[in-house]
């Protein structure tokens, strides 16, 4: 997997580079700001771009804007946004896109999880931090179908949204895959969504619903 990293903190940038290298990936470019990203992507043709949301010069949403721009130019490109804290103001419209991920920086310390999330995004999948999903789920109005979900169904939905497969969810919750399948079927019915065998498409539909009805 060819990776481009955009991160203004030198130590973290170096650490991320080593992490991907240790995982057997090629870091084809490392940048200190978002300005040079489009050019770097065009020349290096990566599978994944990892970008910090806050970068110079204003340290607000440079990373998010660069991510949006890259997804418009290269819809197939995987973009993984990293942040020190979760706020959905700048990213809400990116969340339902295929090949987009949004994780807290802390997640990099769980190296295996992080790398598999990165690979999933590069393949066109989704990788959302549990905090992002929790933010999407919070503050729902009472007439929202999401409010009608049981606690277990919400948990399953949350894990789906993080990008986990049925198998992954079953493992995480210590339940059988059949049980998880039943939960998924129920919650999709409640949300008025067609069942799909394709995990990616299923997650994206859920995310589209959640971000569209974001309070």
């Amino acid at each position, binding site marked *: 997997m060819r990776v481009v990293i955009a991160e203004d*903190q030198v*130590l*973290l940038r*170096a*650490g*991320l580079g*080593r*992490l991907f290298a*240790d995982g057997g990936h090629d870091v084809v470019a490392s940048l200190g700001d978002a300005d040079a990203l489009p050019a770097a992507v065009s020349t290096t043709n990566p599978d994944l771009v990892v970008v910090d949301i*806050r970068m110079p010069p204003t*340290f607000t949403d440079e990373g998010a804007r660069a991510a949006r721009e890259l997804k418009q130019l290269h819809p197939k490109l995987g973009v993984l946004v990293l942040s*020190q*804290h979760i706020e959905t103001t700048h990213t809400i419209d990116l969340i339902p896109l295929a090949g987009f991920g949004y994780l807290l*920086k*802390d997640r*990099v*310390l769980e*190296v295996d999880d992080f790398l598999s999330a990165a690979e999933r995004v590069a393949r066109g999948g989704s990788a959302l931090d549990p905090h992002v999903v929790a933010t999407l789920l919070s503050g729902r109005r009472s007439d929202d179908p999401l409010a009608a979900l049981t606690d277990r169904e919400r948990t399953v939905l949350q894990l789906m949204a993080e990008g986990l497969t049925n198998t992954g969810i079953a493992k995480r919750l210590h339940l059988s895959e059949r049980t998880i399948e039943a939960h998924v079927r129920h919650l999709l019915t409640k949300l008025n969504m067609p069942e799909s065998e394709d995990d990616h498409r299923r997650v994206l539909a859920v995310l589209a619903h959640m971000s569209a009805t974001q309070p």
Partner: protein
Amino acid sequence: MEQQKRASQLSASTIGRAVRRRQTEAVRRLHLTLAPGLLLGLTVVSEVAAVLLGWNLTSRFNTVMYAFSAVVMAGAGALIAARHPRNPIGWLFCGNALFSALLGDAALRWGLRAAAEGWPGGAVGEWLATTSWLPNGLGWILTFLLFPDGHLPGRRWGMVAWAGALGLVLAVPGWSLSPGAGSEFVSGRNPLAVEALPTDALFSVGMTLFLGALVASAASLMVRFRQSTGDERQQLKWFVAAAAFASVALSTTAVLWYVTPGIEVLAATAVTALSLAASVAILRYRLYDIDVIVDRTVVYGTVTGLLAATYGLTTLILGTSLGAGSGWVTAAATLVVAVAFRPLRDRVQDVVDRRFHRARYQAMRRMADFLEALRAGRAAPEEVQGVLRELTGDPRLELLVLLPESQLYVDVNGVPEADPPDGQRERLDVERAGRPLGRVLHDTATQEDLILLRSLIESGGLAIEIARLHVELRRQLAEVQASRARIVNAGTEERRRLERDLHDGAQQRLVSIGLALRHAQHQLGTSKVEYATRTLDEAMVEVKMAIDELRELARGLPPAQLDAGLAPAFLDLARRASVPVEVTAPRERFDRGIEGAAYFIGCEGLTNAVKHAQATSISLSARREDDRLVVTVIDDGIGGAEPAPGSGLSGLTDRVAALGGALRIDSRPGAGTTLTAELPCGS
């Protein structure tokens, strides 16, 4: 003939007694020239002399009534003349009154008294009195022609005046030199009779012209009345009616003088009616704009009279039942009078205002109603400006109130006075109990309106005072809100800075340390063991930096030591300082906000002393003084500290002010710095 002569005199209006006092006030207020007052005075003196001389010699009714009417007409004339000196009407009134008082009443009484007592010159007096009614009559003809504006209604009406004058020229010798007029004298003989003259013929022709002119002059008033409208019509109405009646009555009297005894009643009534009508026009319908000031003098005069009567009556009644000369009677009467004074005065003022100052009375009533509404909470005090505008008819009138703290004049909405102040407008300072409250900017032109405005401000003082307090309160509230907003903003800003420092500093560092550890783990697993040591060393450097950053962040946060109270927190501060610090602090606990503020004052003071003042010893103390906690930081440094905007000291000032306290910095160059903060801490 005495009756006829009397008939030409002025008669009284009902308010006669008040006129002199009112006149005195009017002299001051209306900047009277001396002349009208002098004429009035002479009239009064003449009538007093006439009454004294004629007492018991003529009918008392006549004596008093004619004196009364002359004085009233002289008063009305003096008012008009003072106010409109170019208008002949005032002078005609004055002149007619004085003429009849001096040459009519006084001269006649002299004649009668001289005859009775055998004094010399009696006949001269009688002759003057006998003749005086004719010039008086011409005075009335001119008055009718010129009333009220001093101009003829048309040029040809001048003919009437000339006819009257010619009639006078003929009738005076025809009457005064006639032997037939002997019956008018006590001696029964006219001393100036000239047998050779055809006096009867002269009198007949002259009198015909004269009476014709009188009737015609009255007719001119009718014409004037018909052409008038509105207020002017109201003003003319009464006088025209009286004049019409007078012209008929006086002519009839002249013709029937010898035929019907007692006809003088008709003439007397007519002239009395004229005086009354003129007074009504002036007082009630504001003719000549004389909104006569029946002021405190009149009110107090009336009140005094009524109180004296009350006193007398009380003494009499109680004296009858308790026995005269009892001390109790005097005491009781005094008490009654004392108790009655205030309500009586208000009542009389009310009656006087209602009677004579319709406009003023209504305005004051409106103000009183407003104050009542204010008390009942139905009106806002700021509306007082609108009420003043409405009552003075000045839509641009502006009420400014004085803020005692800043000595600024602001309008009722708290907007400061235009700078530079509008110099074109009249200013009237508003005071209450000797303290300046504000000022009124107005365009009032006339003296009457100014007096009205003064009265309104005086009676509306309460509303103005409340409006001022409102404005002051609103300004202080705005100031407090602004200060609170600044503190909240400062707090938010501080939180944001803290959050960024944590996220971008310590947290990032911890993440990279974690990554380094992971990397080292990887290196250990892949036989590059020797590299792992280097990676871990790098991570250790990061850990140290993270610790330093966190320590920096912790500065500026209330320390854990403050949980135990101010004294341990201060001791902790002292231990951490690089300069010896002597600490005095009470064990007592205070409100958390107060303790926090005191701690930061100590913190900032120490930082300032160490960093900027190059101090070698510092004293940090907190002590309670009554309901205040006083924190002082004294150093022996270079001094010269100033709270520059945005500096730590400036931030302290806001923080202390927010708690209702005060911060003082005494820092002369070379004399060290003393920082004193006083914080209210309850009792």
